[in-house]
């Protein structure tokens, strides 16, 4: 699934797809099939649905940012407009009893996303860089503003509701239950991801990378950088529209928040967090972000602060995102040396995690003391309940923070050295023997 695997396969000979390419998809499909058996509660399924929709959306965003080098601040618009059209279609189907089954609905969302992208792309893709970014911001703001002004189409702030159960039953399924919706979304997620992956392997997809790296050179290879960008842009609009259709099916309502610039910002965050350099990066980002959003926000009121800090740390220290961090280990893994890193990792990352947890505990304590009700000094943190106004928890948190970070710094040189050795062909595990 990664670039590296792909290339080995291509060069050797392979006009057909190799095992290494097909395997991750098969595993993903099987995995998605059995996942609801393990986590069958409706809320778990709802969160997984949300996750899959985000995956499609983030992958489509990465067609722009990661593969095409276009930074967009208004991508939510394409998902939103696709979704709104699906909502209208849903209501038309309900009113006229049209014989259309629900599972084909996302394709219409995609087509409308594509239509909008064609119009906007015709003038916004002439240049990349800041011009593109600012046009996307402007268009995003415009359409977001329209969503509350043009009530006839967007339904104002109440949004546009619908009911998915009036479609033609699909092999007896009326999509009354969440689990049925889950499999519908899972099907579309895998299909869209596969299509987007294949798109990145087509001539236009490959040239998108070339134009991203060096638009001028690409022009001297016979390709107009503008049209290459335009096709990527349309593709991204199409799949964003599909995500919008899935959203319409899952939530049966679209509101103006779907179009807001905040949504556009969030998808940028998700994609970057996951890693723009690899196809599967946005998938990781979508999973991680949805989990943070749904799980962390149940545990902490200041989760957005953590999210902001995590995002900033990612940009500063791991510009490749989660996927980049994972793929950093591939060379060492190829040489069978991942085991070397386990010890130093434990000695560095474990204390670092404790330090971070300590820091978070300090923030939570501070927050609790400042904002909780008078007399309500009990707080629960990391499954322990204690009195936030007593001195002990503060000491524990400070010790954990300082100690954890100190220990991590102690372990860091060793980790760096081992890392270097694990990635140098022919190096020995330790230097001890040689001396």
């Amino acid at each position, binding site marked *: 699934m990664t670039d590296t695997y792909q290339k080995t396969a291509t*060069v050797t000979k392979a006009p057909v797809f190799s095992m290494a390419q097909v395997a991750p998809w098969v595993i993903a499909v099987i995995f998605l099939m059995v996942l609801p058996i393990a986590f069958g509660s409706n809320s778990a399924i709802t969160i997984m649905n949300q996750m899959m929709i985000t995956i499609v959306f983030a992958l489509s965003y990465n067609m722009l940012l990661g593969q095409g080098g276009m930074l967009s601040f208004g991508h939510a618009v394409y998902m939103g407009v696709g979704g709104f059209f699906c909502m209208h279609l849903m209501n038309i189907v309900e009113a006229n009893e049209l014989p259309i089954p629900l599972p084909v609905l996302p394709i219409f969302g995609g087509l409308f996303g594509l239509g909008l992208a064609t119009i906007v792309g015709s003038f916004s893709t002439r240049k990349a860089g800041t011009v593109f970014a600012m046009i996307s911001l402007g268009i995003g703001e415009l359409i977001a503003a329209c969503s509350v002004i043009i009530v006839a189409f967007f339904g104002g702030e109440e949004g546009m509701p619908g009911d998915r159960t009036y479609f033609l039953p699909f092999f007896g399924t009326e999509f009354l239950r969440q689990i049925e919706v889950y499999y519908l979304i899972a099907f579309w997620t895998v299909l869209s991801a596969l299509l987007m992956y294949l798109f990145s392997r087509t001539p236009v*997809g490959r040239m998108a990378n070339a134009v991203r790296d060096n638009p001028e*050179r690409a022009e001297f290879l016979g390709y107009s950088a503008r049209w290459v960008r335009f096709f990527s842009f349309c593709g991204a609009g199409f799949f964003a529209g599909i995500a919008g259709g899935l959203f319409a099916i899952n939530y049966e309502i679209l509101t103006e928040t779907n179009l807001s610039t905040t949504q556009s910002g969030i998808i940028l965050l998700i994609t970057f967090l996951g890693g723009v350099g690899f196809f599967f990066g946005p998938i990781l980002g979508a999973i991680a972000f949805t989990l943070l959003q749904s799980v962390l926000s149940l545990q902490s009121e200041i989760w957005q602060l953590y999210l902001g800090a995590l995002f900033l740390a990612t940009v500063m220290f791991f510009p490749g995102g989660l996927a980049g961090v994972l793929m950093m280990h591939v060379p060492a893994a190829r040489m069978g040396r991942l085991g070397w890193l386990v010890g130093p990792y434990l000695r560095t990352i474990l204390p670092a995690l404790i330090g971070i947890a300590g820091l978070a505990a300090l923030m939570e304590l501070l927050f609790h003391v400042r904002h909780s009700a008078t007399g309500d000094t009990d707080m629960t943190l990391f499954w322990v309940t204690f009195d936030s106004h007593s001195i002990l928890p503060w000491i524990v948190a400070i010790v954990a923070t300082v100690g954890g970070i100190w220990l991590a710094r102690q372990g860091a040189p060793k980790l760096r050295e081992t890392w270097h050795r694990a990635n140098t062909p022919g190096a020995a595990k330790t230097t001890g023997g040689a001396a």
Partner: protein
Amino acid sequence: MTVPALQLEGLRKSFGKTEIIRGVDLSIGRSERHAIIGPNGAGKSTLFNLITGRFPQTSGKVRLHGHDLAGMAPFEINRRGLSRSFQITNIFSNMTVFENVRCSLLWSQGYKYSFWNMVSRSRELTEGAMEILEQINLTSRAQLPAGVLSYAEQRALEIGITIAGGADVIMLDEPTAGMSHSETDYIVELIRKVTENKTLIMVEHDMGVVFGLADYISVLVYGEIIATGRPEEVRANPKVQEAYLGAALEAEH
């Protein structure tokens, strides 16, 4: 009489008030290896950029196989069979060497803006790219990111990208700039090999390379061509010797 591969008529270019190219007339025949030499600041690179559509000319005409190129974007000129390299290495450094070459094959193999073909499924593409890599001796480097290659290898890759599209007019901008002796020999050999039966136009400073490769030489001084001819004719031309050496001396002081 056959139509020349490339023909320049009264080509002029001004930046603001300064005229850089002051009326260049030049005709380059098919399968000719033609070098453009001249002192620093003579306008050689500007001339290149005018021909390839990177800059619009102020006046005059550029004809490729008899077709006027006026107002065409670089990609359109390229599709008409003209390909160029750059003075500063200009490759896709985040992509692998193999990908670099394969991308340069796409248009000429008729894929255009296709999003229904898988590049990896085309035997022609893969084999074509491997063939080019073979020619430029980079087969063993195929899977490395282009950015990590050595300088000479990157120049070789650049030439590979330039010729891969099958253009019959190849323009190379200082292909040996900044190279050691052995590297230069390697590149010259490479150029000779890959431009077999093609029209080659190159800008070059290294006189050894110029006189070793070129069938014809044009001398550009202050935006004008003062002489064109066979290497030995140009070498013997007193006007060239005077003007060229004079300008060169001036440029150095």
